[in-house]
């Protein structure tokens, strides 16, 4: 599956144990694809001495702070980018923004 910039996505609420690069506070949260950063060996496998191949697409994903935190102090327009591997993403509601 490939995502396009502007597409709505949701981060999987997975509890996968071990070394992952998806921080807990974005799990299950909705955001948008900002850009494709590139393809990199999967760090979840590299961490255990494996090759991490094939390389996985890494996206810059945007989130509105107000969607991440119920009690966010600051502008409604404040946002956050996190770099998320494709296998942590699923299509979100609303299609393209």
């Amino acid at each position, binding site marked *: 599956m490939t995502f396009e910039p502007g597409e709505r996505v949701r981060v999987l609420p997975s509890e996968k144990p071990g070394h992952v690069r*998806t921080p807990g506070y974005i799990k299950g949260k909705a955001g948008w694809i900002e850009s494709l950063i590139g393809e990199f060996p999967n760090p979840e496998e590299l961490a255990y001495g494996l090759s991490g191949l094939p390389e996985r697409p890494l996206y810059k994903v945007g989130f509105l702070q107000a969607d991440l935190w119920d009690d966010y102090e600051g502008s409604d327009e404040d946002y956050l980018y996190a770099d998320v591997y494709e296998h942590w993403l699923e299509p979100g509601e609303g299609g393209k923004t």
Partner: protein
Amino acid sequence: MSGHHQHEGAGRTTSPYAARIRAIEALLLEKGVLTEPEVQDNISYMEARSPANGAKLVARAWLDEGFEELLLSDAKSAALQLDIDPEHPAEFVVVKNTPEVHNLIVCTLCSCYPRAILGRPPDWYKSFNYRSRAVREPRAVMREFGFEPPDGVEVLVHDSTADVRYMVLPMRPSGTEGMGEEELAELVTRDSLVGVNVPRL
């Protein structure tokens, strides 16, 4: 901890972590995985990097639009132009502060930082306090560093969760017209390259 060994560095040399690192290093040397010169080379590599590199990149970008463009589109090439060796497996990306958006860098998972350019991160950058609060209440964190984004400015936090290391290109302070590159570079603090503060006159 006793009162009189609180100077810089004291305590670390005797901490269990330091002892563990020394034991691991000794084992790696003994088993031939690493050699002394390799360890020294790595120490020299890290010590040759400092926030002054970031300040040079920023000052040049403030004076040269073409260089700014390169810095924002291909930061490693821009670094090479100033004889800064950006060699590191991770990507290096520079994000630009504007009158509309202020950028802040954090690594919530560990302490990812553009070490190839700026050297070791400050201790606060690695602290649980900063890592957890920079994403949740970035404006409060910046206030504690003495900076409050003006009204109407959006705050954009970059969590370097994976294979990219980020640095902020701050805005050039007003009143610096006519300043040369070195003078400008002196205004660019490490904190302003992370985004918790801005350069000031």
